[in-house]
C-alpha cells in the first residue's frame, strides 16, 4: 500500500498483491490481435486520436457564485498523484486498424516527481475481433456487471479511445485503492453514464478513494459549460488567486450523471482557469483541504497541476515512438508497410487539408 508518510523512496505501484489482470490481458489481447495481421500490408497513419470530451448535454441553468473561495497553500507533505492515458492510430490494414495505447501515473513525493508508465500496448483492431478484444479486457478487471455498457459494440474508429479509457480507469482504480491520505488528479470530468464510463465504475473508483481518505480532483483542460452564455472558465473575478468559484445548477441529460460538484479553479496569476470536478460525496472541508494540499505540494505554473501535466506528457506518443512502433511491428510481426495514396492530396493537391478536415 502507498503510505503517505512512508520513507521509501520508491513508489511501490503496482504492488504484487494488486490484481494486475488487466495489463496481462492487454498484452495477451495485443499479441493475439497482432498475430492476425502478420504478412498483411498496412497503410501508415500519423493521425493522432484526440481523446474527445463527452458531448456535454447539460441544462442551461448553470450559475457561478460570485464570491470566490480563497485558497491558502497547505505545506503539509501530501502525496499528489495523477493519471492519464493516450492512444494513437499507427496505420490501417485491409481489415482494420493498428493502434497503440499507453497509460501513465505520476506523483510528487519528497519534492520530486516520479512516474510509472504502462505500455505501449499495440492492437490490431478489426470488425471481427473488436468485441472480443474489448469485452475480454473489460471483463478481465471490471468483472462487476455495469449494466449494458459492455454489450455495446464499439465502432472500430472509437476503439482506440475506448481502450485508452479502459486502461485509464483501471489505473485510476489502482491508485484509488492504494493511495492513503493523498490527492488523486484525474484528467477530464466526473461525468459518468457514458459508454466507456458506466456510472457504477466511476462510483466505485471514487468510493475506493474516499475509503482511503484520498480526494479525487478532476481537471478538464476544456469545457463547454457556460453561465449566462459565457464559458464558466472565463468568469474570472478580480480577486487574488489561488481561488475557487463554485457553480450551481449543473445538471446533465440522461443517461449522463455527474458524480462531482463543478468548480472553476484559478490557481495562479496566469489568466487561465480550469473546470474542476470534486467528488460529490466528499465533505466540503475535505475538498478544500485537498485543494490546499495540492497547491502546497505541487507546481502549477499555468494554473494547471504539474503532476497532471507530466502524466499527459509522459503517456503521449512522440513521432519517434510512432516510428519505433512501426519498426517493432515490421520486425516482430512481419507486417509490410505500404503507402496508399492520400485521396485528398491526390485529388486536391495543395488545396487538400487532409482527412482530418474532410
Amino acid at each position, binding site marked *: 500500500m502507498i503510505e503517505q508518510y512512508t520513507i521509501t523512496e520508491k513508489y511501490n505501484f503496482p504492488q504484487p498483491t494488486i490484481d494486475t489482470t488487466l495489463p496481462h490481458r492487454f498484452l495477451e489481447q495485443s499479441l493475439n490481435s497482432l498475430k492476425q495481421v502478420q504478412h498483411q500490408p498496412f497503410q501508415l497513419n500519423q493521425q493522432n486520436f484526440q481523446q474527445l470530451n463527452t458531448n456535454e448535454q447539460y441544462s442551461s441553468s448553470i450559475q457561478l457564485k460570485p464570491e470566490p473561495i480563497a485558497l491558502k497553500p497547505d505545506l503539509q507533505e501530501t502525496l499528489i498523484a495523477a493519471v492519464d492515458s493516450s492512444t494513437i492510430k499507427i496505420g490501417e490494414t485491409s481489415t482494420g486498424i493498428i493502434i497503440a495505447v499507453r497509460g501513465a501515473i505520476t506523483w510528487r513525493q519528497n519534492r520530486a*516527481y516520479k*512516474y*510509472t508508465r504502462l505500455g505501449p500496448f499495440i492492437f490490431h483492431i478489426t470488425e471481427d475481433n473488436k468485441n472480443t478484444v474489448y469485452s475480454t479486457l473489460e471483463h478481465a478487471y471490471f468483472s462487476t456487471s455495469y449494466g449494458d455498457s459492455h454489450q455495446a459494440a464499439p465502432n472500430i474508429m472509437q476503439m482506440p479511445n475506448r481502450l485508452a479509457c479502459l486502461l485509464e480507469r483501471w489505473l485510476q482504480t489502482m491508485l484509488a485503492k492504494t493511495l492513503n491520505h493523498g490527492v488523486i488528479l484525474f484528467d477530464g470530468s466526473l461525468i459518468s453514464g457514458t459508454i466507456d464510463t458506466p456510472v457504477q465504475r466511476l462510483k466505485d473508483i471514487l468510493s475506493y478513494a474516499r475509503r482511503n481518505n484520498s480526494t479525487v480532483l478532476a481537471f478538464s483542460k476544456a469545457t463547454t459549460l457556460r453561465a449566462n452564455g459565457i464559458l464558466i472558465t472565463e468568469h474570472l473575478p478580480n480577486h487574488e488567486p489561488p481561488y475557487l468559484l463554485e457553480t450551481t445548477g449543473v445538471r446533465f441529460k440522461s443517461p449522463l450523471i455527474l458524480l462531482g460538484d463543478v468548480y472553476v479553479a484559478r490557481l495562479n496569476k496566469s489568466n487561465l482557469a480550469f473546470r474542476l470536478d470534486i467528488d460529490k460525496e466528499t465533505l466540503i472541508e475535505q475538498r478544500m483541504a485537498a485543494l490546499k494540499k495540492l497547491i502546497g505540494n505541487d507546481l502549477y505554473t499555468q494554473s494547471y497541476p504539474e503532476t497532471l501535466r507530466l502524466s499527459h506528457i509522459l503517456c503521449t506518443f512522440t*513521432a519517434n515512438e510512432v516510428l519505433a512502433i512501426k519498426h*517493432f511491428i515490421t520486425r516482430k510481426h512481419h507486417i509490410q508497410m505500404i503507402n496508399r495514396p492520400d485521396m485528398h492530396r491526390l485529388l486536391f493537391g495543395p488545396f487538400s487539408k487532409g482527412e482530418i478536415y474532410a
Partner: protein
Amino acid sequence: MRLYKKEGNILQIISFPIESAEKGDYLLVEDQDAAKALIAQVIDVQFAAVPGVLEELLRTLPDGGEPLQGEDIDPMEIAPHITYIQDASLLICKIRATLENEMLSPSSSWLPSRSQSTIKKLSIPMLLKLAKVEGKLPIILGGTKDSSLLTIDASALDGTLNIITGKKGCGKSHLSKLLMVNLVGYRATVVIFDLNGEYTSLGISNDGKKNMYYDKIHTLTPGQNFKVALEQLHLNTVMGILVNALHLPGTSAREFRRIWKMLKEERKLNMQELGEAIRNLNCNQHVRDALASRFHSLANSGFFTDSSGEATLLDEIILKAKDQGGAIVINLKNTSNIDRQIVVEYALGKLVDSLSNWKLKAVFLFAEEAHLYLRETYWDDIVTRMRHFGIFTTFITNQPDTIQETIYRQADNIFLFNFTNEHDLDVVSRAARVDAETVRSIAHDLPPHHCLTLGKVVSDLPIVARVKALNIKTMGETRLFFKDTS
C-alpha cells in the same frame, strides 16, 4: 542502411545503430536494376533528424529542472526500438566513383533507386581491387580500420610530386622513412635533405644492429664527411650558390665569373687562389667588398676544401646509389641557415647535372621543412623543370602554409596526418586531387600515426591507414628536459 538524399556528389544515408559506419569508411550503394553501383566514402557522421526526439528529451525534465525518475512497464519491449530509432545516424558520404561492369569511373551523374538500392560496407582490399591499386612494386603503408593492409605501388610515386603533412609528432617522418626504405629496396636513388639528422640511422635497427639497408644509406654531413673542392664544381653551380644562397648582385656576379674563368685557365681553382684573386681585384670597391664577404661565407661554411683527399665525390656516391639503389642523406643538423642553402644549392645543382647528363635516370628527393633552405624561385623549378630532369620530390612539413599554393595544385599524392587548426586544413584542401570537405572532416579526427592517403597512389580514393611500424632506430625524438628526472 537506407539511401536518403543525393545532392551533387554528396549522398546522405540513414544508418541504424547495428550498422556501425565511421568517417573514412567506404560504402557500396548498389542498384541492381540499373546494374550499377556508387562507391561513396563517409566523410561525416551526424544524428539523423528523427522527428520527436526533442520532445522525447524534453519530457524527462519537469518544471523543477531535475530529471524525472520513473519506471517503464513495457511488456511488449518497444523501448529498444525507440532507442534504435533515436540513435539512428545520418552518414554524409562523398561519391568517389561509379562501378559498372567491374570498371570504376569517376562519374556521379546517375541516381540510384532510393527504395531498391542496397547499401553495404566496402572493405579496403575489395576497394583497392576494384580500383586496381595493385602493382609489381608493393609498399605496405599500414593497416586500415578493417584490419586489412593498405598497399600502394611504388611506381605510383614515380614521376610524382608528393606532400607529407600533419601536425608535430603525428608520424610524418616515420612515413617518409617507410617510403624511402621501400624505394631503396626497389633500387631507387633517394636523396634526403635531413634537417634534424633523423634519417642518419636508416641503416640501423631498433636493437642497434645493422639492417638490410645499412650499406645503401650514405650519410653526408657538411663540413665533416661532405666537403667539395672548387675544381669539382661547375661554374653554374657556384653561381647558383652565390646568387641564390648568398644574394650576390649582378655586377659582382659578372666579376666573379671573370675571376673563375681566369683561375680555371691557370689551373688555380682553389679557395686560397680565389681569395687571393678577390683581394687583388682591381675594380670598384663595393664589388670587391661584395665578393670578399661572399668568399668569407663560403670559406666559413667549412663545406669547401682545397685538399683533394678531403673532398667528397658526390658523383661517385650517386653512381653507387644508382647501381644498388640507395639513399643519400644530407644531414643538415647543426648547419647554419646560409650554410644549409649553400649545401642544398650545391646538391641540387649536382643532381640536375647528373640527370641532364643521364648519369642518373631519376631521383626521389625528400625535403623536410624545405622552406628553411629552399629559395622561393626553386619551388616552381622543382615541380616543373626539375621534374622533367627526373627529380621527384616529396615535401615533408608540419607548416602546410610554408608550401606554395602552386605546389599543392600540382601535388599528385598527399599523405595527410592530423591537423586541428582550420587554417592548416584550408591550405591543404587547395590541392587539386583533394576535396575540401574530405580534408576538413576526416583529417580533423585522425588519431596519431593515422594517415589519410590521397591522390594517384590510391587511385583518388582517399583511404585512412595506421602507418606501419618500422624496425629502424628512432632519431627524430624531441630532446626533453624532464625525461629522466622522474
